[in-house]
């Protein structure tokens, strides 16, 4: 077992036990035991084959514990030094104008909720985990207990559960349109490198609608780690439009694990953009619990230097008549490494299912690497499933064409990369937002579009 896992194990054993409902205390202990017994993910864990822990081990973060006094959500609109106007958040990436005025803005700094602001909408409840556990205990318990924490492959969900103390609960009553929420994450390395754990619950009732925009961007680049577990419950016909933009520093480690439970006719639309980070992994798993549900996973990663981004998507067609799509575009320069693992499982009886997977990648540097693995596991016959994966380069003829018309080589390459990523941004509904993301993508590709 790695030195880091041992260090975490000792830290967990000597930590003051958090106080909570009895079932939760017991679960924390179980998770702690799991992590201590199995350690960090290893290369032999099939799901971690392409994502080594080197960057995390080099960062060597200590587990951050947050004393109980900070458990409570700040009063709405209340700000602290670290809050809404605090210096730890950089300028908002998305100006309010682009977001159709976000109805809520919520900030999590170093794994602690530090503020929220927004208009009151009836039927929309935003709570801290402590408050949420008082109000929706059985509902949250169901989700918390459903998380797999066994074995080294689940080390990060185990760590998150073992330290479960900080979180955010968003609950939307039936038939309510909750508008747009902006969830901003930032990290500091002020107390030395730490790993912060946080839990999010998005509980959308029947016929609800929410646009959630997550933004991971720290103003402080001294390096830290964030380990987030997200539970999404979509009632029948609910729609969650979930956009995630990650533009962290190269010293940052981000592990996210999102589990989506979809009822009949619900729609989950995910779009993830990874333009930064040192070691980043997003695990997203959706389960269709009712017919007619749909999930789309769009993603683009544009990586430079030694960044490593791993997207693990899994769709469980447990009900008939559902459709899913995974659509990823990767651009890799420098010494970066990109990983795409898309799984689709169609269970026996899940007829009339449709699955599409696409992973296209541009490899632009001799030291960059891409590993892609679109998997299909199909046990029903009335289905349509297809996947495609490609790895290639920029089209030399296209570059020549542009250069012959007076464009510089770097500019020509930039245009081609931008066009390649447009395949993803073009599919976003909010085109103003898509335009802003395209700009960010443009900024994220400095070195590999240089003249050579």
């Amino acid at each position, binding site marked *: 077992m790695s030195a880091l896992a041992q260090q975490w194990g000792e830290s967990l054993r000597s930590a003051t036990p958090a106080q909570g409902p009895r079932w939760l205390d017991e679960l924390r202990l179980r998770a702690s035991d799991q992590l201590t017994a199995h350690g960090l993910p290893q290369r032999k864990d099939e799901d971690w084959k392409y994502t080594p822990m080197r960057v995390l081990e080099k960062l060597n973060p200590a587990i951050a514990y947050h004393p109980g006094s900070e458990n409570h959500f700040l009063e709405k609109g209340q700000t602290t030094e670290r809050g809404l106007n605090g210096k730890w958040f950089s300028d908002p990436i998305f100006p309010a104008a682009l977001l159709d005025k976000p109805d809520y803005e919520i900030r999590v700094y170093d794994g602690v909720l530090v503020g929220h602001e927004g208009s009151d909408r009836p039927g929309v409840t935003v709570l801290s985990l402590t408050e949420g556990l008082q109000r929706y205990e059985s509902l949250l318990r169901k989700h918390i207990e459903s998380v797999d924490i066994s074995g080294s492959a689940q080390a990060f969900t185990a760590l998150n559960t073992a330290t479960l103390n900080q979180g955010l609960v968003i609950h939307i009553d039936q038939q309510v349109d909750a508008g747009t929420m902006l969830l901003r994450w930032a990290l500091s390395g002020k107390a030395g490198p730490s790993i912060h754990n946080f839990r999010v619950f998005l509980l959308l009732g029947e016929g609800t609608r929410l646009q959630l925009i997550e933004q991971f961007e720290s103003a402080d680049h001294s390096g830290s780690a964030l380990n987030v577990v997200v539970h999404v419950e979509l009632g029948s016909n609910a729609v969650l439009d979930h956009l995630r933009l990650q533009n962290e520093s190269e010293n940052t480690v981000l592990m996210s694990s999102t589990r989506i439970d979809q009822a009949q006719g619900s729609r989950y639309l995910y779009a993830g953009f990874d333009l930064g980070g040192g070691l980043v992994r997003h695990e997203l798993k959706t389960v269709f619990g009712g017919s007619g549900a749909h999930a789309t996973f769009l993603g683009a990663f544009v990586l430079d230097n030694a960044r490593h981004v791993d997207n693990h998507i899994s769709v469980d067609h447990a009900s008939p008549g559902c459709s899913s799509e995974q659509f990823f575009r990767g651009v890799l320069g420098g010494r970066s490494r990109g990983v795409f693992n898309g799984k689709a499982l169609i269970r026996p009886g899940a007829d009339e299912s449709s699955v599409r997977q696409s992973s296209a990648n541009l490899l632009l540097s001799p030291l960059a690497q891409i*590993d892609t693995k679109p998997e299909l596991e199909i046990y029903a016959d009335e289905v349509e499933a297809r996947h495609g994966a490609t790895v290639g380069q920029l089209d030399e003829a296209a570059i020549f064409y542009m250069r012959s018309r007076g464009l510089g080589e770097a500019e020509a390459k930039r245009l081609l990369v931008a066009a390649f990523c447009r395949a993803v941004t073009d599919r976003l509904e909010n085109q103003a937002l898509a335009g802003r993301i395209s700009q960010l993508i443009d900024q994220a590709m400095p070195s590999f579009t240089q003249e050579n």
Partner: protein
Amino acid sequence: MHGELKEVYKPMSSEPTQVDSTSANPSSVDHFVQQQYRYGFVTDIESETVPPGLDEDVIRWISARKEEPQWLLDWRLEAYHHWLKMSPPDWAHLKIKPIDFQAISYFSAPKSDKDRPKSLDEVDPKLLETYEKLGVPLHERARLAGVVAVDVVFDSVSLGTTFREELKKAGVIFCSFSEAVHDYPDLVKQYLGTVVPSRDNFFAALNSAVFSDGSFVFIPKGVRCPMELSTYFRINAADTGQFERTLIIAEERSHVSYLEGCTAPMRDQNQLHAAVVELVAMDDANIKYSTVQNWYPGDENGVGGIYNFVTKRGDCRGDRSRISWTQVETGSAITWKYPSCILRGDSSVGEFYSVALTNNYQQADTGTKMIHIGRNTRSKIIAKGISAGHGQNAYRGLVRITKNAENARNYTQCDSMLIGKNCGAHTFPYIEVSNPSAKVEHEATTSRIGEDQLFYCLQRGISEEDAVSMIVDGFCKQVFRELPMEFAVEAKALLEVSLEGAVG
């Protein structure tokens, strides 16, 4: 030491290719689904078999019996000691009951082996009869204008080799592995285990320890093998694992096409088959390796059938060398097989064409690995999976472009067809690219057999059976056309026999 004589011949319930073309009524074709394995019988020949179990003594016994040199015994023992430390792979998409490796007998040879026939004419007529039952009459094949030379592997010992003289004239060595060990020890020693090391994986290590026999082919520089080489394998004695080892070496500018086909008798106990095939292609050499695998698949309830764990790997050592694998996998209860190419030489080419069919309770986890190391290397993968009944069919493939493999190119297409409600089709492609000049394309589709196509055929008076067979044939065409002609015919027939009645 002598195996018991058993007679478990089961008559066929019907002529399998007979189709009721006047009716597409599903019930009228039920008997096709339930039809018995066509090739189920055991030939009544005394066998010499070691008692079940594996230890050092068994390996020493096998080696001594085959009068092997010390170095080969040492090699076997080293593999055995390593095997003891290994555990069976569990990553494949297969449900396998644990195999008791001590319950298997590791050597079986027809008794008449001591008096080895000099030519096919001297082969025990009962053996020849066996091949007649298999539908592969040797004399007919031999008559095919001397095109095919057949090295017959009956259980574990090679019996006779046809056309050896003619091959000898061309300088081609085609003989059983045991003979090669005696006659060409330097060649065997030079190449054995250089493509699939004895420690490569659990089953390759087991094979290295106990391999019984197999084929050895050597094509010298600049020689185009004058005929297609062919080996028919056949598992015969009950409870006897077969551990063939095949080694094919193609020197500079040589060409060879090798055919491997197999059927096995009906038996209720699972039998283990763990073969190793090693191919070496030097500069500008070309090896084409074709397989039709029709081991006993178990009955319609999933009882019995062969466990087929095969390690096949080709090493394109030379520049501009080419290795092409073509396989039609219709048999075995379990198939675990990934014929691979290591594209070491610059501008070398690897190809993999596969049709895998699973019906009833068959399970297959098969695919390929293309490891691009040299510059300008190219690979192509065409895999077609057909699942029917409760069959589970998985494609598992790796395409790896290493750092120095400039301008590597891969194209992969894997399509799966589902016939029926209870079967499964799975695709697990691994694509690992570390060189920016690589072009890799992978596409896969999974769908049920086209209802519109079926409807179109039925509407024009074609029976459902014929329609399915036509559609499946079209689905597999890309692979079939890579097979040598007579193999393609056999493969097509096999697929029809295995599938008829699956729709309805």
